[in-house]
């Protein structure tokens, strides 16, 4: 229903968006994810109408939005700072878009009451925003943006001002709210955990370009490039050179580790001699004092270099030789111990030949 076609935007020398193409389906929870300055906010503001692409088109239900000012677009935004009107009560804030749309009084009152029920704050109608907690303001901001039933709801890092506990609770509420009302959400965040937890699909952006668009699990397990692998979650990136590519496996010379054979998740058209990298999640790596040999696995021996105690897990940074380090983690399920190995210990690690994902 929302189509971004070849959108570019330049601020002086700085290219904020470069030939961005994407398509958001009706009823989808779609997330734009990327580090600050990647262009995600520029793209969001372009959809809302506060910024204008230099080239390309933005279509909603097949019709271009570009000639419409923000107030005429059937798109509402939840702002990062909430932007609740401080001189209006909660009810007046929520009624604002309905009054602008010139709905009649009884209809406005009915809808305000209804949406306050939806965000579970029916008794706050007469309060001023200053009297509400951060989480409540957040819900009122969402209620205000939803009340006039936009075709599309844009959310600009709406949870970034909340503390961690509340953020998690609001994430669950957002998912349920989106499911219940069925409005398409386009959500902007730099928090990869939030993106993975909330979205149906995620577009990872970097330096004004789309790096990859995929479902969360696919994005996590099969990153399309180094940037995505590195940006989403913890990831070991082991550089190497392609030796030979077969239909079901590829032989790779990993720098400092030697020749290995990998199966599954191989990008198309890999040529011999081409540089590549194996992306490997720490939780896919087995780690023990001694590991029994297993044909399906790749085996290495190394020395613990550092440990990071995280509470639930401990991260072990293991040196496999010649400056190649990998991170592995073990759950601290044994009682009363912060870590199983100390720096300097010799350990064995192993991962399945199909565990990683090869990228260019």
């Amino acid at each position, binding site marked *: 229903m929302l189509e971004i076609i070849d959108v570019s935007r330049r601020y002086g020398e700085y290219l904020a968006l470069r030939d961005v193409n994407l398509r958001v389906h009706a009823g989808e929870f779609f997330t734009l994810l990327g580090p600050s300055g990647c262009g995600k906010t520029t793209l969001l503001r372009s959809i809302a*109408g506060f910024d204008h692409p230099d080239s390309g088109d933005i279509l909603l239900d097949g019709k271009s939005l570009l000639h419409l000012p923000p107030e005429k677009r059937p798109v509402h935004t939840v702002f990062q700072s909430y932007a609740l009107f*401080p001189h209006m009560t909660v009810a007046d804030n929520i009624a604002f878009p309905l009054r*602008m749309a010139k709905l009649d009084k009884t209809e406005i009152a009915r809808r305000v009451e209804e949406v306050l029920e939806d965000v579970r704050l029916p008794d706050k109608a007469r309060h*001023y925003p200053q009297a509400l907690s951060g989480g409540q303001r957040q819900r009122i901001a969402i209620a205000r943006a939803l009340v006039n039933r936009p075709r599309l709801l844009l959310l600009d890092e709406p949870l970034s001002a909340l503390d961690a506990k509340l953020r998690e609770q609001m994430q669950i509420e957002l998912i349920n709210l989106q499911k219940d009302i069925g409005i398409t959400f386009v959500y902007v965040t730099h928090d990869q955990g939030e993106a993975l937890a909330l979205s149906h699909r995620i577009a990872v952006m970097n330096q004004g370009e789309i790096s990859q668009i995929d479902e969360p699990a696919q994005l996590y397990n099969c990153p399309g490039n180094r940037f995505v692998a590195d940006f989403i979650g913890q990831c070991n990136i082991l550089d190497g050179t392609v030796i030979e590519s077969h239909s079901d496996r590829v032989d790779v010379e990993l720098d400092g580790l030697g020749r290995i054979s990998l199966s599954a998740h191989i990008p198309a058209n890999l040529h011999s001699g081409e540089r590549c990298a194996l992306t490997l999640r720490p939780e896919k790596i087995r780690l023990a004092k001694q590991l029994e040999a297993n044909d399906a696995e790749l085996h290495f021996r190394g020395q613990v270099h550092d440990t990071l105690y995280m509470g639930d897990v401990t991260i072990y940074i293991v040196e496999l030789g010649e400056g190649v380090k990998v991170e592995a983690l073990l759950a601290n399920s044994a009682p009363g111990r912060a870590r199983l190995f100390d720096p300097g210990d010799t350990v064995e690690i192993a991962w399945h030949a199909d565990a990683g994902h090869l990228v260019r």
Partner: protein
Amino acid sequence: MHHRLSKVLLALPPAAYLVVFFAVPSLLMLLASFRYPGEYGGLAPWYYIDDGQLSLDLTTENWLRLVESTIYLGLLLKSLGFALLTTLICALMAYPLALTIARSPKRHRDLLLLLVILPFWSNFLVRIYAWMIIFSPQGALSEGLNAVTGLLGLEPVNLMFSSTAVIVCLVYVHLPFMILPLYANLEKHDPALLDAAQDLGANARQRFWKITWPLSLPGIYAGGVLVFIPSLGIFAIPDLLGGTNGIMIGNVIKQQFVEARDWPFGSVLSLVLTAITLMLVAIAGRFGRPKGTANG
């Protein structure tokens, strides 16, 4: 306990200042308003001792004079009208200017504000004399204006010594006092609020009247008080530019103390002015508070 003590200590200097320079003088004025004028100006003694018996020598005739004569009440009303008109014109002129400054790029704002306060660098009276030159019948403004009225077959206009001259000069002198608080208010507005309003369907006019205007009211009240109060009591401008038509209550008060040497009646008029002013400040304080803060 410690906390309360520091609060009291902090409040002490301003409280002492108000007592010494406002409360005590006001009480002295109140007493003076019931006394007789001295034979050569000043005040007559307010008590005398006769046969070891203390007697008060006070009168209500100063207050009766105020109530019985319509001149003073009329003049008071006229002064209120002048001050109100000045405040309105200042608000109308200051609003677009303050809004422009508040929305101009940050690096320009300081320069623009400097231009606003630049007139303060020269003496108040000098600036009023400058207006006397501008308004004088031989001045370019009068001659230009009368050339036009002459062509239209109208009577020549005399700008000097008129109510118009007084209002123009009152506005000129007090305009910065409206611009500065208004700017201070407008500059603090979160631009995201206007984005949000626009996003939710408000056009430019609706954004102004629903968001900017109501949020700027405290600034207008603050500026209004700063313009209205000095305009109400001013005597220098009507003295120099007003002639007999442009006279205001401040001139009469000054006359009572300096020329008529009737301090008690001067005190009566001053007290009335003070009372009116305090009432207006209280009203502005009530309306000037931003909405929503009471609940918070």
